[in-house]
């Protein structure tokens, strides 16, 4: 897949984008800081040895005791036999205590709120929260103010992310100008500027003709189109899942059908256009089944879900708890079980936190008026580990959904342990018990319905580009 990636901007300069099988995967996120010169590398490239680790690489299936060496921003070497005779002098050593050392998490659905709503979150605060959660790459939605629908804004977000120095930041760009659902954006130029994929964020592209043309145009450059799967006219006015609970609470419901209608429509557009299409945060049994059938027919359709769709159901709304207000809404228990099945059988390719910071002014409101969304960067790892601890998935298989799978979907050089690859790493204890406590969140917003939930598994140390960005103190 990565071989098909192009760097279209180079075309005008008369260069041919590398497309051969040997060419390295294009870094869809655009240029990073230029590599230091050879002399500079000798002088400054810090080396760190991670010893006594359980090396976990979901991409290759590696799960073995061993050690790993980073040099500068890259992984220099790793393997079971490395440093068998001890670590040479002059190399900083991290004793992993037999805990898991894995590629850092790639979170393919994050709202950073910058620019425009810095009182809820900033690229800096989200980066700190990410580091604490073991997330080393965030892909952010374009629903900021202004909307990321222009190459200059793509460059702004990338540059702010680099300056913040936390997790890597790659933006989505909007499918339609101003997220208005009418006119498509300059997808080719936006991609060349560093947009990794295209989505209208928290709203669906409702108009079928607009979506068809956008998919068709995106296929020119083999770009990924990501859809918020909800038919807006059917969901209009709704605030939670439609069913007994919404009826008892007297809230307008959103039927599960609103999701599958949009997915089914789009799958037919995929058949017309051949575009690569990804369903974001699938939440219903029928939605998963629609994707499963599309995959069985060989269509380029993928999807992800978020931990709340397999970790919670509509009863979390309880007595109008606005922290459990989401879009799409938390669904019925049967839907929750179908999401677990979808993750297990691989229909659901990836898991993303769906991080959506909201301040108190947006949540301390009557349920119908409250903004949807929960934060998730710091709880992604323990919540997905529930699937492992409950016996649903082997650890490596599960980790793949938050590392190499989303990285491959987006054409990112991330999410894998690879010599010469970026030293984006998380050291975590998969079994460590703790209780989620919203007072300890580093995120600027605290809206999580998981507050107080006992979980197992926690990030102990996080490195981005070889640089340690987080060490757990307790």
């Amino acid at each position: 897949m990565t071989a098909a990636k192009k760097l279209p901007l180079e075309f005008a300069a008369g260069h041919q984008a590398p497309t051969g099988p040997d060419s390295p995967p294009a870094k869809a996120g655009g240029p990073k800081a230029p590599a230091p010169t050879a002399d500079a590398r000798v002088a400054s490239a810090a080396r760190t040895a991670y010893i006594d680790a359980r090396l976990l690489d979901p991409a290759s299936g590696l799960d073995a005791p061993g050690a790993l060496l980073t040099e500068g921003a890259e992984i220099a070497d790793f393997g079971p036999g490395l440093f068998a005779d001890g670590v040479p002098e002059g190399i900083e050593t991290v004793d992993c205590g037999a805990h898991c050392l894995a590629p850092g998490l790639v979170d393919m659905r994050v709202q950073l709120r910058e620019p425009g709503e810095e009182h809820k979150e900033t690229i800096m605060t989200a980066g700190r929260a990410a580091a604490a959660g073991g997330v080393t790459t965030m892909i952010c939605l374009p629903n900021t103010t202004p909307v990321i629908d222009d190459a200059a804004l793509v460059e702004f977000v990338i540059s702010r992310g680099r300056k913040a120095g936390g997790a890597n930041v790659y933006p989505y760009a909007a499918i339609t100008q101003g997220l208005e659902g009418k006119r498509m954006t300059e997808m080719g130029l936006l991609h060349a500027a560093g947009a990794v994929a295209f989505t209208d964020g928290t709203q669906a592209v409702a108009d079928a003709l607009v979506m068809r043309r956008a998919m068709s145009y995106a296929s020119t450059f083999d770009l990924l189109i990501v859809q918020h799967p909800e038919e807006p006219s059917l969901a209009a006015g709704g605030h939670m899942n439609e069913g007994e609970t919404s009826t008892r609470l007297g809230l307008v419901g959103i039927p599960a059908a609103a999701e599958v209608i949009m997915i089914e429509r789009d799958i037919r557009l995929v058949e017309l256009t051949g575009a690569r299409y990804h369903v974001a945060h699938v939440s219903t049994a029928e939605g998963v089944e629609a994707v499963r059938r599309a995959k069985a027919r060989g269509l380029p359709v993928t999807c992800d879900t978020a931990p709340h769709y397999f970790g919670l159901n509509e009863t979390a709304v309880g007595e109008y708890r606005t922290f459990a207000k989401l879009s799409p809404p938390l669904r019925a228990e049967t839907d929750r079980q179908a999401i677990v099945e979808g993750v297990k059988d691989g229909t659901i390719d990836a898991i993303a936190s769906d991080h959506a910071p909201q301040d108190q002014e947006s949540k301390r409101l009557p349920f119908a008026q409250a903004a949807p969304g929960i934060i998730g960067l710091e709880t992604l790892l323990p919540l997905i580990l529930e699937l492992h601890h409950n016996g649903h998935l082997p650890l490596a298989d599960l980790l793949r959904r938050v590392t190499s799978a989303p990285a491959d979907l987006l054409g990112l050089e991330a999410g894998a342990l690879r010599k010469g690859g970026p030293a984006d790493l998380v050291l975590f204890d998969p079994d460590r018990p703790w209780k989620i406590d919203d007072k300890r969140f580093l995120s600027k917003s605290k809206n999580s319905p998981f507050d107080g939930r006992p979980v197992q598994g926690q990030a102990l140390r996080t490195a981005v580009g070889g640089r340690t960005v987080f060490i757990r103190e307790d």
Partner: protein
Amino acid sequence: MDGNAPNRAFAHRHLLGIEGLSADEIIYLLDLADTYFEFNRGPDRKLDMLRGRTVMNLFFEDSTRTRTSFEIAGKRLGGDVINMSVRNSSIKKGETVIDTAMTLNAMNPDVLIVRHPDSGAVELLSQKVTCSVINAGDGSHEHPTQALLDALTIRRRKGRLRGLLVAICGDVLHSRVGRSNIHLLNIMGARVRVVGPPTLLPPGIERMGVEVHHDMASGLADCDIVMMLRLQTERMHGIFVPSVREYFHFFGLDYAKLAAAKPDALIMHPGPVNRGAEIDTEVADDITRSVIPEQVEAGVAVRMACLEAITRNHSTELEGAAA
């Protein structure tokens, strides 16, 4: 050029499209046009072949160059040429076409030159009149004289059509010029590519005998002819393509993209040119590469040839048989 001999080389009452013509018929028209091309460069440019004949330009859609080209062609052959512009925006189109045709037919013209914004409208009109009809462009369907003048231009420069590699680039979806050229070039044994974003290429176009390319580098590789199509600006702002800027960046013809084609590749454009949208100004004006003015010149010659070929069938037994 005996105006009264039955024309067995081109036994048609109308010229409605390229589709359905034979290679021999196309060669006949091009050979005839070639003689007019030279004639038009001579000092005396008036013949009397169409003396006493009435040619009507009936345009339901704005046009300057095509209408003028037909007008000059008709006049040089000695005919009386009348221009009619019909604004059809406020009238029901189907009725108008037939009503207008019946009315004009009653005035006994010999040839109607018709342009209409709806595909198929010219053929519909041709069924209701007793005179000859030449299609000057119907919707996104056909523009036969444009394809013929393009072919004449290519043949004069390259000496042949067979075996040439032709890239037709841009808004093929809405283009009657593109479709007529695809038909003609296929009939004449050229290889045809279409190049553009999928939003501007109609579905199933590959079934018309073309290779489909979505980027200019592969689409133009080793081409003998680069044929650019006009992209109307109102289609550029996020509807079919995101913007003029992006369209030009990826699909506009500039020297960097042209480098993929053969060094002696010709650049063609049916006009009017959107400079900086589908083609760079310098490229469009490059007299060593661009044959855009020559296409216009060939247009008059081709239309003279078509008028001659069609009217030669008048007042003969063939008229009824070929209808």
